[in-house]
């Protein structure tokens, strides 16, 4: 069977566009046969090994057979066949249209592929109407050694060392390109780069930089450079950020660095890159020294005047809220000091230059000013975790400050009516919420999000912020994140969220405890007590505001009142002590008196007062057991 090469030749595509194209081309490949998809900056390539010679025949279904007299002629005419050519399948007339020979069908198919590729950022460059990530400059298509009509039979090699490259046949494409200093296969380029870096002693290169440089060179070589040792006195992170953020270099030990080139004379290219890096380091060190000359206290004063978010005051206001929030979180003096200095580096020139340095460089300036390490580390760690699986702050002060910062950001965004909707989450609030959950679960921080966000909201109001909403939905938003993070099924998490436990870690452990005991006798008893009470009284609005024991007449009714009065504080105390099994056991005790009450007492009594009182009693049962959570969420 014949092989196909299809190459879309482009001006240099950005790395994300290469990735987007690869995904779409793989699904096109799946429709054609076996083969491979190769992407890189100047070409998107589809190689198919075993294309059938003809497209498959297609059955075109026509009118039902019983309408032959009325409709057959029209259908046949439309299909360009005689009535006699129509066949019958499953009671319908139809015609089997033979598949076209591949060479005939391919031009249309391939053009559709080009037109069908979609990119998150696309452009026009001429009047063809085609939109693509960057201009398409040639299309080369070979079926074995035949050039597909309407397409070119040549590719182009390395931009500066080779020109047009005739492609003799689809199978010889890769060899032809490799002879012209182009490696079309991104995996091969990645291997070359990884191997080159490994030889220079770098086993684990920054994956973000690596993913980008794979698509920045068609003929990659890894080169090594050095910079003047005097720049080693700069904080390491500043040096590394200067290398990675703009230049896409790989920091090596000491004053060495690696980078990926796409050609050129190595000595010349290395000397040039060394000069550029030294220039950037010169610039960074100039800026660093200006910041240090100001010192962290003065940076703090300057940052206090910078607007944090329009409508929610300045960084000065933010810091005042952080100080109150770390207090509420039980942080000590070091946490408060860290909160005071947390946003000072927002006024640092180096942060304006390299936004990724926020927090880290503030910590550095605090160290230079002689603050205790607990304070500096907390400033350093305040934005952690900064990704779903990223590390948590290592220090207690860091965890406290990181939680305060996230709670405040959530309260601000919700207050301004900017909660995330659908896929829109410009402030990274979902990440902040997941971060809070992890700080509670893995960092063992006690986080009552409802109370903390209410406090942040009150502080904002006191500071004169112009808010649209309160922060009452923040806790729900954060607790929702637990649903995807715990082993317990979602229903148990939802149940636990409605319990009397308001602190994140407690909710999580309660959900796990409920899930673990779901098959026990205790759970069953508590569930039935809750469910029976809830079903009858839960939706009624006729209940009395408060129970009046004097209105109770039946023995079963009095017994239930006594049982609730006994169980309720027991359940609450056990929950408070996080002894969830004890709480469940106490709740289970209510099953028998509830069953007896339903057997012997008519809730819907004629006397309105008595009826209202009995409904209230059932609500009290529901609430006592419901301190363990909204058990109605759990399907039985």
């Amino acid at each position, binding site marked *: 069977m014949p092989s196909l090469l299809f190459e879309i030749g482009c*001006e*240099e595509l*950005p*790395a994300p566009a290469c990735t987007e194209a690869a995904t779409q081309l793989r699904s096109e490949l799946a429709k054609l046969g076996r083969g491979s998809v190769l992407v890189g*900056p100047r070409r998107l390539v589809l190689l198919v090994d075993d294309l059938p010679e003809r497209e498959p025949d297609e059955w075109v279904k026509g009118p039902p057979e019983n309408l032959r007299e009325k409709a057959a002629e029209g259908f046949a005419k439309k299909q360009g066949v005689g009535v006699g050519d129509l066949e019958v399948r499953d009671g319908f007339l139809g015609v089997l249209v033979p598949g076209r020979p591949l060479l005939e069908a391919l031009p249309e198919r391939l053009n559709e592929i080009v037109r069908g590729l979609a990119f998150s*950022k696309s*452009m*026009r*460059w*001429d*009047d063809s109407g085609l939109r693509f*990530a*960057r*201009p398409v*400059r040639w299309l080369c298509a070979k079926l074995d050694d035949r050039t597909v009509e309407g397409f070119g039979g040549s590719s182009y090699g390395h*931009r*500066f*060392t080779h020109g047009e490259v005739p492609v003799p046949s689809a199978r010889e494409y890769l060899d032809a390109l490799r002879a012209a200093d182009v490696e079309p296969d991104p995996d091969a380029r990645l291997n070359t780069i990884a191997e080159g870096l490994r030889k220079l002693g770098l086993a684990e290169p920054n994956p973000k930089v690596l993913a980008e440089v794979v698509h*920045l*060179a068609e003929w990659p070589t890894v080169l090594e450079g050095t910079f003047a040792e005097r720049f080693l006195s700069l904080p390491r992170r500043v040096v590394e950020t200067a290398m990675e953020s703009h*230049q*896409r270099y790989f920091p090596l030990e000491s004053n060495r660095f690696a*980078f990926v*080139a*796409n*050609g*050129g*004379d190595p000595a*010349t*290219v290395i*000397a*040039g*890159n060394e*000069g*550029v*890096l*030294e*220039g950037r380091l*010169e*610039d960074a060190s*100039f800026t660093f020294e200006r910041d240090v000359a100001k010192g962290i206290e003065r940076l703090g004063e300057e940052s206090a005047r*910078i*607007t944090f978010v*329009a409508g929610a005051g300045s960084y000065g206001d933010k810091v005042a809220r952080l100080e109150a929030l770390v207090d509420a979180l039980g942080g000590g003096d070091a946490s408060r000091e860290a909160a005071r200095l947390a946003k000072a580096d927002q006024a640092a020139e180096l942060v304006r230059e390299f936004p990724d340095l926020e927090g880290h460089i503030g910590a550095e300036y605090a160290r230079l000013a002689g603050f205790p390490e607990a304070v500096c580390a907390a400033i350093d760690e305040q934005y952690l975790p900064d990704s779903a699986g990223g590390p948590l702050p290592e220090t207690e002060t860091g965890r406290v400050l990181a939680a305060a910062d996230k709670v405040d950001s959530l309260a601000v965004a919700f207050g301004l009516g900017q909660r995330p909707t659908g896929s829109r989450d410009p402030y990274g609030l979902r990440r902040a919420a997941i971060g809070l959950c992890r700080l509670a679960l893995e960092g063992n921080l006690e986080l009552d999000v409802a109370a903390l966000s209410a406090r942040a909201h009150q502080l904002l109001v006191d500071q004169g912020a112009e808010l649209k909403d309160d922060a009452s939905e923040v806790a729900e938003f954060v607790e929702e994140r637990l649903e995807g993070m715990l082993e317990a099924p979602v229903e148990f998490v939802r149940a636990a969220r409605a319990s009397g436990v308001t602190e994140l870690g407690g909710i999580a452990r309660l959900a796990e405890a409920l899930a673990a005991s779901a098959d026990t006798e205790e759970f069953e008893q508590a569930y039935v007590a809750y469910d029976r009470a809830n079903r009858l009284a839960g939706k009624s609005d006729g209940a009395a505001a408060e129970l009046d024991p004097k209105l109770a007449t039946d023995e079963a009714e009095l017994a239930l009142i006594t049982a609730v009065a006994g169980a309720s504080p027991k359940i609450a105390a056990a929950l408070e002590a996080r002894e969830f099994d004890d709480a469940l056991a106490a709740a289970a005790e209510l099953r028998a008196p509830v069953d007896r009450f339903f057997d012997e007492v008519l809730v819907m009594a004629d006397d309105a007062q008595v009826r209202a009182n009995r409904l209230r009693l059932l609500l009290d049962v529901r609430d006592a057991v419901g301190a363990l959570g909204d058990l109605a969420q759990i399907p039985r």
Partner: protein
Amino acid sequence: MSPPNYQEMIASLERYWADYGCVLMQPYHTELAAGTMNPATFLRSLGPDEWKTAYVEPVIRPTDGRYGENPFRFQHYFQYQVLLKPAPEDVLDLYFASLEALGIDTKRHDVRLVEDDWEQPTLGAWGLGWEVWCDGMEVTQFTYFQQVGGLEIELVPAEITYGLERLAMFLQGKRSALELEWAPGVRWGDVYRESEREWSVYNFEVAPVDILTSRFEEHETECRMLLDRELPLPAYDQVLKCSHTFNLLDARGAISVTERAAYIGRVRTLARKVAQLYVEKIAQPAL
């Protein structure tokens, strides 16, 4: 072959693009923060007419000044701007040939196109393209305009903006722009260092905030008046003056983050109106 000095480099670019058929223009007469803002690029990008131009543009960016003490940052430096409308199919090859014309052997160096999506919110303009790197040094920005003045581009131009100081640093192998040879025996710093110092003092310390604030209002008012009189070209000058006044106020630290967005919005509104009027009045083919 010894590398060209600064003025020879400019002369080579002028020669190269003139030979290609560009109209060589001269710098515009009011402060611009980028060669893109010159009406020869901004306004001529609009409408259906073909246009090829090239020119040196001094760019004024008050916040980038460093008192002449930093080797890379200046509040006043130069771009060489080329606009080819429509973008010819071989536009990248044309550009690389211009590097060869300057004496850059693209086989000996590592020349790369690195994604750079360009956006200028004050002018309601964006495009896609690249930074061009020579051995890691960003020497040019290359952009296919998609929208200008909030209007979709009819005939997509390619904009090539050479950063002349960086290009010269690359050519001359210098680590400081101040050390570049401008003409035989004269360095860049000899020509501009004192100017950088004085203008940095002006931009950061002395520029009168109250006068500038009311000047912004005056330019805005004048722009609206000129729009009413259907004079897009003079109106555009007032947009440029608003933009520069805003940049000065920004350098003086007189603009809070919130006000900033409002100021940018005001300039953008004017730029859009000018662009619309220009397209209506001038860019339509004569009847």
